């Protein structure tokens, strides 16, 4: 099988919530190893589209092919196992668990020990646990969390919680990393650091990144392609320079008078 240059191909994805059209026949592709962004005003259907890629919602119609596999009817955990890792817009860590345990949960689908293994704890399982702990620590350090691995995740500062979410998503060993407003609530310096970090992750781990973002500095700085949604429909797509000068985009963000 020759490798498709596109990691993800979504065709005519449509999602209706009753009378509301949240995704209006969206066509969307993510090339391998690229960083692409999904932007649009609030309520444009960005997160809804995200949730369809990850299996949280099932599209009303359309197809989403990830790495050669149709994922539309798959449950979220199976899609994660295929290689889509994600973070959440409003941080959703396992708040009672330590930072380390959060990352270990992310490794769930890459580990194999079962019930008897858990109870009898043979050498194989011990080794797997020890290795996964080491790997989890490495990931935490990699994502900028060198300390406080055993602290309850909800007691970490906000920025660290965001980093932990990324570490947890990376623990699923993804080919595609979905980041839902990762820099929300960060100051300009933190956002800049984060932008550099996203690029580094892409380069070093060889994965593709799709991000939803409101901070235009981040979006324009990091993404190679940008797709703009408004009212569930795709209104523009292209490289950052094209998007910046696209009349429909400016109109969508700033209102009609702004174009002139």
């Amino acid at each position: 099988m020759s490798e498709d240059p596109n990691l993800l191909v979504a065709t005519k994805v449509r999602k209706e919530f009753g009378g509301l059209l949240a995704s209006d026949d969206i066509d969307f592709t993510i090339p391998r190893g690229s960083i692409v962004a999904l932007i649009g005003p609030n309520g444009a259907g960005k997160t809804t589209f995200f949730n369809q890629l990850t299996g949280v919602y099932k599209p009303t119609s359309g197809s989403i092919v990830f790495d050669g596999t149709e994922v539309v009817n798959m449950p979220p955990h199976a899609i994660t196992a295929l290689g889509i890792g994600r973070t959440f817009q409003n941080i959703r860590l396992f708040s009672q668990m330590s930072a380390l345990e959060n990352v270990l949960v992310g490794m769930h689908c890459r580990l194999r020990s079962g019930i008897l293994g858990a109870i009898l704890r043979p050498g194989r399982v011990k080794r797997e646990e020890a290795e996964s702990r080491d790997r989890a620590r490495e990931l935490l350090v990699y994502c900028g969390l060198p300390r406080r691995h055993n602290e309850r995740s909800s007691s970490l500062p906000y920025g660290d919680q965001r980093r932990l979410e990324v570490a947890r998503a990376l623990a699923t060993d993804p080919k595609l990393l979905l980041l839902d407003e990762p820099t929300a609530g960060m100051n300009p310096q933190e956002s800049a650091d984060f932008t550099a970090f996203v690029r580094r992750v892409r380069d070093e781990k060889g994965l593709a990144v799709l991000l939803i973002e409101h901070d235009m500095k981040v979006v324009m700085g990091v993404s190679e392609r940008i797709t703009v949604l408004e009212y569930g429909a795709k209104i523009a797509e292209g490289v950052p320079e094209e998007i910046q000068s696209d009349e429909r985009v400016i109109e969508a963000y700033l209102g009609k008078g702004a174009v002139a």
Partner: protein
Amino acid sequence: MSDTVDRVRARLGDNANVWLVPAVILLGILYPFVEEGLQNLPLIGDFMPTTGTLVVMIAFTMMAVGLNIVVGYCGLLDLGYVAFYAVGAYTAGWLASQHFEQVTFHFGSSVDNGLVGIHVTMWVVLIVAGLLTMLAGIVIGLPTLRLRGDYLAIVTLGFGEIIPQVVRNGDSFGGFNLTNGTFGIAPIDPVGFPVLSAIGFFPENFQTSDNRERWYYMIAFLLLLFTIFCSVRLRDSRLGRAWIAIREDETAAAAMGVPLMRTKTWSYALGAFFGGIAGAYYASFKSGAFPADFYFNVSVFLLCMVILGGMGSIWGVTVGGMILAYLNFSGLSTIGSKIQDAGIDFDPTKYQFGIYGIIIVLMMLFRPAGLIPERRHKIELEEGVHDTPFYDVQTEGALTDRNPADD
């Protein structure tokens, strides 16, 4: 360095004190031998439970520890756990009594070879009861675990009523007597050591041995230790982490690759497993499975144990289970007789569920995480949320590196 600390902590489980667990185990083993001495003590002597009472207490504590896997670890409110107790007890009834008089089958049993009915040794019965209950857990779980929160609780409540109802009226399934209806199945064979008895010391049959209670107690104690051991190991495993992740945030857990249905079903099945074993063992101890034992109040009683001890905390649930079971099966009546002796006409056993209700209300008000809170809850309640102050106190007025947008 921190890795070693981690490992030590993992080995200790909830306990910071290395000596506590062996000490409790030793006391547990010694109790039946010092029981009489304790009961002769002034003042507190009357409150010491008999070894027989302890067997019952342990059986219910085992069920509570099993229920804790479902409610405490996975966060699934199960209001019908009594169903698993019933399945376990009736499995013992079917495989180790004279109930099926159509056949005569003996396999390593401790009773007379001439008896009709199926008589399998209780050791096998315990395992089969566990597995069969596990199966019941899966059958109940698969259709219901898709539901969330309150809805799940209501459906389990339904199943908790269905199974005892079936048991009560199961004396004629198309003419076949499955459960012997309201009379229940009795007598159920006692536990014994049919093979080991050849070398002496070990009795072939607990019932006819000199120390019936003591033997039943020893095996019950071992079963409880086994349940706790499995429960600790499961909690600290990949599966246990997945359970807790589901409890914390189901959507996030699924997005991290945790298969929700399978993981929840396992928590249900494993929780049921221990309930089944406890049910079968208790049925053998009281030598019968009676439908009157399987009412809704048992489910609530077990849930109270879990809440009292601390949801998710194994040691907490064990202690909570022992305390409530003690009050239920001996403590309240002892207290009652003391009150009567003092000349006051008040019988606390009449108000047992009212008293448990008061205990739960007080617990929720003053110690919501339970007697021995789960490590995670404890951290939260004792340390509070870590926070960097806005202003550095030492260099007054200077802003710390905390970002206001973070709040």
